[in-house]
Structures are given as structure tokens and as C-alpha cells.
């Protein structure tokens, strides 16, 4: 955060005073406060605040609390990462295969990923949601969704 702030400040230096003064002040404050926060986290001998990333620590902490989630073989943090990856892929896929087809596939994939094994949900939820989105956004609101080269 500190490094990023300094880099952006250097960017603003080229701006005229009236345009640069405000973002400049904001950035300088962020850098100073980030430094204060960093100093405090060491001074108080707590675990550094940045240590709790999605892939470490947290999963171990909560896994004992609630174990009623189905499909326990995959760990929760791997699942979270997979969800993020699928969502990014889904957003990108709008421009490849079109929003509606992408939605159909994405929803089925996430329902499966989260450990749902009831077949009527795996099939039903994507179809109902895609139909709903088609009706609300295309028929009622005339929203032009992006259509990719491979879209039907």
C-alpha cells in the first residue's frame, strides 16, 4: 500500500496544482496512516494484519466450528479460490459465448462446486435463473448483452 501510494503520488506531481492538490493530499494521508498502522501492528506484537490471507489460517480456524457443509473432501479455502476463478472466467466468457449460455454453465458449475448433489437443483437452478434473466433483462428491459464469436 505504501509503495503503491508513493508511485501514484509521483504520477500526480505532473498535474497542475488545482487538479493535483486534492488527490495528492489524499494519497499522502494514506501513506502516512498505512505506516502508522504497520508500526502499530509490530509494536503491539500482534500477528501482522496481512497474514490472514484467504488461503491460510482462516480455514483451519473455522473448519472445526461448522462441519455440516456437504462434500467435506475439498477444503474450504480451495473452494473459495475455485469460486473466484470460476467467477472471473464467467465474466470473461460473456464476450466469448454470450451472457446467457455462460450463465447456464457457470451456475451449474458453482452449484456442483459447493457440493450440491441433488440433481433437480443442479439442473433446475441454472435453467430457472437463465430464463429469469432472459425475461427480465432482454424482454422487459431490452438490455443488449454482449455476444461473443461463439455465442448461439
Amino acid at each position: 500500500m505504501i509503495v503503491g501510494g508513493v508511485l501514484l503520488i509521483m504520477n500526480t506531481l505532473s498535474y497542475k496544482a488545482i487538479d493535483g492538490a486534492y488527490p495528492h493530499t489524499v494519497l499522502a494521508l494514506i501513506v502516512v496512516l498505512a505506516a502508522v498502522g504497520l508500526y502499530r501492528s509490530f509494536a503491539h506484537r500482534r500477528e501482522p494484519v496481512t497474514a490472514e490471507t484467504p488461503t491460510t489460517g482462516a480455514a483451519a480456524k473455522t473448519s472445526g466450528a461448522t462441519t455440516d457443509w456437504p462434500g467435506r473432501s475439498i477444503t474450504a479455502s480451495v473452494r473459495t479460490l475455485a469460486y473466484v476463478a470460476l467467477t472471473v472466467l464467467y465474466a470473461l466468457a460473456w464476450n466469448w459465448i454470450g451472457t446467457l449460455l455462460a450463465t447456464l454453465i457457470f451456475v451449474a458449475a458453482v452449484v456442483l462446486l459447493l457440493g450440491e448433489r441433488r440433481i433437480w437443483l443442479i439442473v433446475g437452478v441454472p435453467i430457472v435463473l437463465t430464463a429469469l434473466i432472459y425475461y427480465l433483462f432482454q424482454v422487459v428491459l431490452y438490455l443488449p448483452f454482449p455476444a461473443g464469436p461463439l455465442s448461439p
Partner: protein
Amino acid sequence: MGHMILQGFASSLSPTIIGLMAVGVVIGIVFGSTPGLTGAAAMTLLLPVSYGMDVLPAVLLLIAIWNAAVWAGAVPAIVMNIPGTSAAAATLLDGHPMARKGLATRALRSSIIGAFVGSIAAALALLFVAPALGYVVSYLGPAEVFAFATFGLTLVVSVTRGSVVNAIISALIGLLIGTFGFAPSGFPRFVFTPDLLSGFPLIPALIGLFTFPELMNLIRERRQRIVTAELVKHDTFLLRAGDWAAHWFNFVRSAVVGVFMGMHPGAGPSISSFVTYNEARRVSKTKPEFGEGNVDGVIAADTGANAAVLSGLIPAFTLGIPGSVDTIIIIAALTLHGVEPGPTLFEKHGQLAYTIFAGAFIANVLMLIIGLLTARWIANVARVPSTVLVPVVTVLALVGAYSVDNTWFDVATALGAGLLGYALRSMRISTIPLLLGLILGPILETNLYQAIQVYGSLPGAIFTRPVALIFLLISVANLVHASIARRGHRVATDAV
């Protein structure tokens, strides 16, 4: 004036108009409670439809949608911890903890009743004192709006829990993101891609910031549904006189403050809800319960938000100054029918103005009835299995982000904001100050810029405007007080 008000009620009580407003309320609830869809979107869509109507039903339909949509933003905030509109971010602070305890129905009831009380207060202000308040508004210039926005921003330290430094950092990140795009002088800043010329879009950022961290936590913590506590289904909160005896002053205070905040062009429900929430917390005898699910927090936030909706019509009707996108749409609907809002409105179209205000009154009653009837049913969303909820909300969020401007850049913004929000939450930094910074940043800078243009210099702008100066001093006092209070609290907890 008295007979005009009575005549107004008589005209707006026609079955056609009531039916139309009921439809408006339902549309408003659907758009307001879906993250990504806003009341402004619904109003824009229906503006062409309203051309074909008379001016009265057209304007009342739009008002019904607008008011209901601002309230409905609280629904996903309470049930899913995802605010449907920016004003609902204050509802979330106590509304979602209540839902977590199984009190979703009670939170929703307090929220809708608060919204009703706030709207009625604003409708009363419109009916009886609009012309007088118009004069007050005409005194307020950019220096005052800058001071109000600064005040709103300093509230982040008192409304969020945890480190003051972290809250300020979060607010500053919001301000920083708000500087992307054109500066008030027209100079482009941080424009790394042409999509950024007008800055980061607010609604997609809001959706991403709150939706994705919530869903990711749901997966990571292996929660089977958002609320695992048993839902209290039959809640009669605020049906008994005793409940009112305990909370009436909160309703009144939040409504009055909300009406006052809503009058300022640019302030509106998002600042108002935080100001009234903060006031309720400040005077409360059970301060530590705020943030843990205190019903007074929900009441204050939603009363304040909705009181600031209709009072936004005061500068619009009396001075012709629109304070928000929504009021621009309503002014547009009036002008398209040949009615020019402004100082002459009450002379030329007095009866129409009073009929609109009376109609707004009735629209509020409809909102209350529909909201109360659906509250128990809506609360069940919190019980939908995560396996279904996560993919459905993901898709709705991204499609909603896209629908704001029909660009894929907005979808990417929502995703980016989501990852930023998750990273900040992992560092125990609340994203609510960031949201406030993002909303208030452009208001703050634009008004500061204008104030400096008008008064020559920054001290000149502030020291010649007593109202602005007082609000800036209160802001500083608020920051200092919060830092000292928090320090005392930390010493106390360290000792334990």
C-alpha cells in the same frame, strides 16, 4: 392553502392513481432490493411510459417507485449483508447482526416502519413548509455542502468498529478511487483506459464491494446458509404501545434530521442515514450494542434515509435545483408536461403541487402496507441453502452491474471491487468508510472547487460562511472525540 391540501387528498384518492402507485411501490421494491438495479433505473425506464399519462399520475408513479426503492435497499442489507442501495449501508451495520440472531423479521419491520415515519415527515414538510424551506436552501452554497460532506465523512470513525486508523485508511482509499476520471476543472486524472474518463462507476463498485466478500466468506466459513440461527417467524414488534414508548424519540429525531439533510442538493439519503445512525448511537444508553444488532440502529438509519428522499423535492420544486439523479427525472417528468418547477411553481400550479404532495403521502401508506405484508416472507431468503444462493447472487450482481451502463467495464469494476473488499476485510478493515469516501469524494471536491472559485481562497470560503465553519468544527471535534474514546476502550479491553 388548507383547502388546496384537502383538494389534493381528494384528487389523489382516485382508484386509478392508487392502483398506479401500488404498482410503482412493487416495482420500486423489486429494483431497490436487487443489488445493481436502482430506483433511478426503474424511473428512467418508466419515464417514456409516463409521457402518455396525465402529469399527476405520471409524477406520482415516479415518486412511489423512488421512495420504495430507497427503502428496499435495506432488504438485502438486512437479509444478506449486501446493501441494495448506498443509503442501506447504514442499515446493514445493525440490521444484518439482527438477522444473524434470527431477528430478520423484526429488523425488516423496524426498517419499513422507520422508512414510513421518515417519508411521512418529509411529506408533511413538503405540504406545510416547502416554500419557507426553499428560502433556507437558497442560502446554502458550495461551502456549506462541502462542510456537510466532510461531516458525513468523519462519521466513519464513529459508526465502524475497530481501529480508527483502519477506518480512516479505508475512507481515504474511497476518496482516492473517487478522484479517477475528470477533475472538476475538466482535467483527466489517472485515466489509464478510456473507460475511466468519467471515473469508476459507483453502483458496480458498490455491488462488488459488498457482494463478493460476503459470498466468499460464506464459502470459506462453510456456512450452509447466511443465517444459521432459527428464524423468529412471528414478530409483533412495534404493534404494542410499549415499543413505541421506548423508541418514539429515535423516530422523531431521525425524521427531523433526515428531512434537514435531504434538503441539501447533493447530500441525500446516503449521508442522511449515516448521520441519523450516528446520532442514535451517540445518545444511546446501550452504545456497545450498536453494531451487534441494536434495533435503534436500524430504525435510525431507515427513518433518516427515507426522510431525505421526499425532502429532496423541496429544492427541486421551490428552486428548480435537482439534488440527485432521481429528482432530475421527476423534474424532467414535470417539464415534459409543461410544468416548470422553480420559484413560480406555487403561483402557477399551486393545486398540482399540493396534490402531488398529498399523493406522496398516500404512496407512503401503500409502501408501509406492502412492506409489512412481505417482510416475513422476505426474511426467508436468509434460509436459502448457500449452494443455490451463491451462484444466483453472483449472476444477479454481475448482470446488475452490467445493466447500469451496458458496458463490460462495469462488470470488471464489480469483480475488482469485490477482490479489494475481500482483501480489506481479511486485514480487518471495514469497507463501509470506503463506500462513503467513494460517494462523498466527488461531492466534496466539486463543492470545494466551486467554493474556492466563488470566494477566492479556501479560508475565505470557509470563514465567511458560519454554517460551513460550524460543521467543519463539529467534524474535527467528532474525529478527536472518537480517537480518544476508542483509546480508552482499548486500554479497558487490554486490561481484561
